[in-house]
């Protein structure tokens, strides 16, 4: 289905949806743009720049409670309660890369053996209304990982800015339901204009990099610690790359003790941290930042594609490059491994 919605009506749509759903939208805040829970009266910032933090939290919150436990006295008669997520969410105005990021989670969080009910329920109850990019940034490389500035995969509705509004195309049945709102009107021949804008944005990105050889080349470099020491020299192990990434899905599980109650919580974790793999015995399989960086890059461009049909665990949004305080560029690391010859 193809419809049209004015900029004003998109805000009205966000306001209407916020009455019944949790709406996440990019909002300018303290000099940056970030996804926030949208409430009527808030000002959306859809166009100034890509939100610094991805919309990952919509389906995989930074912190969520898995269980609560009540007990009479410590270690006596504990009662466990599952706290599965409730309600529906809508993400408005994320870039296609941010919406597509969650697709990387699917073959990990839902397999024949394992079904993560927290992720699955959030994913199935969240609608993504994405906005096609018309001005890709220098850090963007979605086109190199099988995507593009108007990629509909992962979105339910894809908006393209045309004049004073957006051409809105449904991608899924849930997206089609959104377009049934009276706030949308007939798109007329604006669809052609949208196609032209999307094609132009893709052209602006230039030639895509070929990552086909990356999985094998990265493995071939695995034991070359000089290579990894050089690549990680500037890294300060802050983990910004993992926290900003729409496709990083590693987590920690810890207990939050509240006296005679406790919560078991899941939080985003950071494979660039020394403690990520530190074992109780004191042994650490990834003792240096070089070991940790090679695992992170290896996971995204080698292990994951080897396990999941060649798909890279990266949506090419470039947040890890843009937000890295040390200026590390993951594209350059993979390229260096691909170009390396003995």
């Amino acid at each position: 289905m193809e419809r049209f919605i004015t900029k004003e009506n998109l805000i009205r749509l966000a306001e209407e949806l916020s009455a019944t759903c949790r709406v996440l939208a990019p909002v300018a805040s303290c000099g940056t743009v970030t996804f926030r829970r949208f409430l009527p009266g808030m000002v959306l910032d859809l166009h100034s720049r890509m939100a610094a933090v991805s919309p990952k939290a919509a389906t995989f919150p930074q912190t969520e409670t898995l269980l609560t436990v009540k007990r009479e006295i410590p270690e006596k008669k504990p009662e466990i309660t599952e706290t599965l997520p409730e309600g529906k969410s809508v993400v408005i105005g994320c870039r296609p890369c941010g919406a597509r990021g969650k697709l990387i989670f699917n073959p990990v969080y839902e397999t024949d053996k394992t079904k993560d009910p927290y992720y699955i329920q959030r994913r199935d109850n969240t609608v993504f209304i994405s906005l096609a990019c018309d001005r890709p940034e220098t850090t963007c490389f979605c086109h190199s990982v099988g995507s593009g500035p108007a990629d509909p995969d992962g979105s339910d509705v894809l908006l393209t800015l045309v004049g004073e509004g957006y051409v809105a195309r449904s991608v899924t049945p849930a997206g089609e339901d959104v377009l049934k709102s009276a706030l949308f009107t007939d798109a007329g021949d604006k669809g052609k204009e949208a196609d032209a804008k999307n094609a132009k944005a893709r052209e602006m990105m230039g030639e895509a990099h070929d990552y086909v050889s990356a999985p094998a080349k990265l493995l071939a470099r695995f034991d070359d610690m000089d290579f990894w020491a050089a690549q990680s020299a500037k890294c300060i192990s802050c983990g910004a790359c993992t926290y900003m990434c729409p496709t990083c899905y590693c987590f920690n599980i810890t207990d939050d003790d509240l006296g005679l109650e406790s919560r078991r919580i899941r939080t985003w974790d950071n494979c660039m941290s020394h403690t990520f793999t530190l074992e109780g015995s004191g042994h650490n399989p990834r003792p240096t930042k070089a070991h940790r960086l090679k695992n992170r890059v290896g996971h995204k461009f080698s292990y994951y594609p080897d396990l999941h049909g060649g798909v890279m665990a990266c949506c090419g949004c470039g947040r890890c490059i843009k937000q890295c305080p040390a200026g590390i560029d993951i594209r350059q690391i993979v390229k260096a491994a691909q170009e390396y010859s003995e």
Partner: protein
Amino acid sequence: MNANPYLPDMATIVEVIQETHNIKTFRIVINNEERMAAFTFRPGQVGQLSVFGVGESTFVINSSPTRKDYLQFSVMRVGEVTTRLHQLQPGDQIGVRAPLGNSFPVEDLKGKNIVFVGGGIGMAPLRTLFTYMLDNRKDYGDITLLYGARSPADLTYKAELPEWTERKDVNTVLTIDNPFDGWEHKVGLIPNVLLEINPSPKNTVAITCGPPIMIKFTLQALKKLGFEDENILTTLEKRMKCGVGICGRCNIGTKYVCMDGPVFTYAQLKELPSEL
């Protein structure tokens, strides 16, 4: 396992055995009688024990599935969860998520000679399989158990050692690193004693677990003795959280120790990136 893989079963500690100054063995029973009766696992599989308000940690189920009265876990006190576990008494409640991971290939091992090489707390996963084989003794050929620790005080399962050393159908060899007054068994590092015992690799599978450094030199000794990579099994310890192949903490390349392991052959380990 529950449909929700993060939801533990409540269990009661029924017995606590002080093994060494920093290792205790816990015998637990799942509170739900039906779930306890239906609980099955294979030797080598692990479980997550919860102390609510403190957290979860992974331990191997070191009882044998042939003995179904309880599930047994041996816990070395090294961190927050294990310290709290060590304070618990019979009757206290904990959570358990199990069984997790793969297991020793007990069917494929039938008819073969077995050499167990265990070091310190690394005896725990071997105990499961060793006990299983004792309970199915006729299915297996010669069984040798080489078990070592730093000192006599560091040996676990002391209550069972007399039975293991006295049984005629098992060759049990105990060793400690340095001489100790009254010690009547071997003295020497495990890999050296292994070479001294000199087991034949013919139709024999070696199964080892212990500290990483011990495993490293044991593997070298086994190769020196002529064992094929496919006939050497080990179980790996990794820091694990989810236990179901998601949280991304225990991977070695494409393999997840909590799902693809903890049991690996040496041949499989050699195929993995060197990140043990």
